[in-house]
């Protein structure tokens, strides 16, 4: 008897079985490293694990997407366990959250996996691996593999293809290879695509001072950090809206768009969520601004007035906002709360970019309102929980602080009602 629930069973072919089996094998290789069991020498074990994972997942992706129609298919997304908070969704959520907890606070438990990446770390950084290198490697691998999946799913939409290539490029080159290379060259480990307040240290007095003292490149980095945060951001946001960063450059955004794509429909669309979002995100912005000012005051007054208060404040902020919110909840909760929890409820960069977008930008989503049939796909797949349909039905432009310009609403609209424009 075919019920609604099982009409979306996969039609599994032999090749699909094979690809899935290979994926499972590659994951087992990583798992065995976690338990310090190496089947070969570390280098071979790492190469085999990564190659097997890449080849099998790419194979699986191509098999799944090769005979689909030339359109975006979200068939069964609310019936599949992984994408609708089912058992698989929760399992994945627990796994991701668990990994983050271990990574941040119990890195010694990951010793096996960390040592597995020693060979790669030696090549890229000329030093042994550590928990952050492990994290960066997994992160970049995830963005690239799921970036291919995303590209296959949305392959008939050039905006999505180019945007995904951009995000994969910035993650691989600027957020992984360049920082590693800087370490190899004994230069400060610097991330050109992150700036204050997302990476708040970029405008901290001690950090800037350290960079400035470290050499010519360090001086350049200081100028870069200041200019991009205070001049580059407003100018780029004026022309393109917040999307130039949140959907095209930022690594958090990159992960959210690639790995988080299967979960975008889980974002909360309620007015209550919007209210919490506004209160939370601007509060966090205020916190980080106060924190930065406190640190500068403390530095200027040589710690006489504030003593260690600013440092305590900094530690608490770093723990709660930087680690728990941004890392553990932000990514670990993808399968439960959707892909952009940090971006929507916490990121102070998003708060600033959002204010600029709303009041000082040419970007908006224009609507061909008469053709809107009210299907609601735009609102369903909006990862920021914006009720796009309401704007479309009334023929109004969507100009919202939270809109990251991912373009998915426009891509899934069956009647061509939405267009991202810099008017």
């Amino acid at each position: 008897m075919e019920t609604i629930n099982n009409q979306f069973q996969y039609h599994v072919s032999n090749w699909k079985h094979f690809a899935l089996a290979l994926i499972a094998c590659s994951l087992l290789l990583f798992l065995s490293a976690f338990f310090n069991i190496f089947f070969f020498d570390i280098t071979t074990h790492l190469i085999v694990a990564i190659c097997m994972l890449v080849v099998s997942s790419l194979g699986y992706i191509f098999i799944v997407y090769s005979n689909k129609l030339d359109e975006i298919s979200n068939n069964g997304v609310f019936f599949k366990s992984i994408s609708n908070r089912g058992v698989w969704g929760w399992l994945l959520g627990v796994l991701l959250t668990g990994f983050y907890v271990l990574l941040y606070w119990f890195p010694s438990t990951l010793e096996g996996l960390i040592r597995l990446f020693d060979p790669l770390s030696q090549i890229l950084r000329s030093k042994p691996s550590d928990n952050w290198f492990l994290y960066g490697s997994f992160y970049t691998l995830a963005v690239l593999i799921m970036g291919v999946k995303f590209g296959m799913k949305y392959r008939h939409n050039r905006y999505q293809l180019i945007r995904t290539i951009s995000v994969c490029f910035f993650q691989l080159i600027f957020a992984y290879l360049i920082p590693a290379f800087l370490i190899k060259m004994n230069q400060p480990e610097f991330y050109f695509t992150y700036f204050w307040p997302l990476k708040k240290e970029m405008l901290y007095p001690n950090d800037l001072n350290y960079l400035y003292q470290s050499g010519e490149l360090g001086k350049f980095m200081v100028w870069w950090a200041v200019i991009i945060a205070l001049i580059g951001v407003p100018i780029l946001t004026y022309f393109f809206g917040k999307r130039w960063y949140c959907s095209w450059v930022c690594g958090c955004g990159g992960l959210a768009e690639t790995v988080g794509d299967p979960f975008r429909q889980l974002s909360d669309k309620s007015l209550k969520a919007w209210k919490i979002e506004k209160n939370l995100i601007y509060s966090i912005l205020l916190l980080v601004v106060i924190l930065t000012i406190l640190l500068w005051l403390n530095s200027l007054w040589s710690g006489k007035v504030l003593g260690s208060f600013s440092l305590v404040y900094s530690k608490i902020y770093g723990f709660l906002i930087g680690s728990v919110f941004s890392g553990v909840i932000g990514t670990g909760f993808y399968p439960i709360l959707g892909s952009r929890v940090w971006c929507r409820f916490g990121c102070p960069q998003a708060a600033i970019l959002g204010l600029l977008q709303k009041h000082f930008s040419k970007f908006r989503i224009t609507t061909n309102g008469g053709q809107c049939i009210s299907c609601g796909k735009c609102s369903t797949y909006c990862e920021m929980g914006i009720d796009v349909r309401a704007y479309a039905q009334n023929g109004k432009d969507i100009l919202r602080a939270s809109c990251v310009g991912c373009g998915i609403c426009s891509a899934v609209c069956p009647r061509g009602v939405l267009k991202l424009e810099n008017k």
Partner: protein
Amino acid sequence: MVDDFLQTNIPNVYAIGDCAEIRNPNFGRKPIEAVWYTAKMMGEIVAKTICGYPTAYQPGIWYNSAKFFELEYQTYGSISTVANTEIESLFWMDESQKKSIRIDYSKVNQNVLGFNLIGIRYRQNVCENWIKHRISIEYVINNLKEANFDPEFFKKYESHIKQLFIEKQKNGNYK
């Protein structure tokens, strides 16, 4: 049967949607239009009237849209379905045969009458303006990109269509 205010022959009784036949439809519209959006428009009109602001039903130019599998379809204005000696039709299709544009225009006055679009998105207000103000096909062909509503980075076809139109003018027909 209803009048311009969608009122039947009985006072304070209105009819909207599939069951309403308009006695004097606007130019370019039909007496009965049983499509997805007309009922909603009629409903809004009657609501205004009932609330004390008598409003006549004035739909703009005819339009519609649909999607068949992966093909998006949009239409604005009127496209003739039979050969017509007074109407000229410019038809362009891309190599993949999944995108096409048809523009009907008057042979005599050269003003555009309607657009059929498959796989390409157009702005309703631009097309409506062009049709309402009887803009010439020449102007439309030269300013086609004003109507384009495709997402950024999508391929642009305006120059191909212009080429086709020029050939058509030259040869009296194309291909």
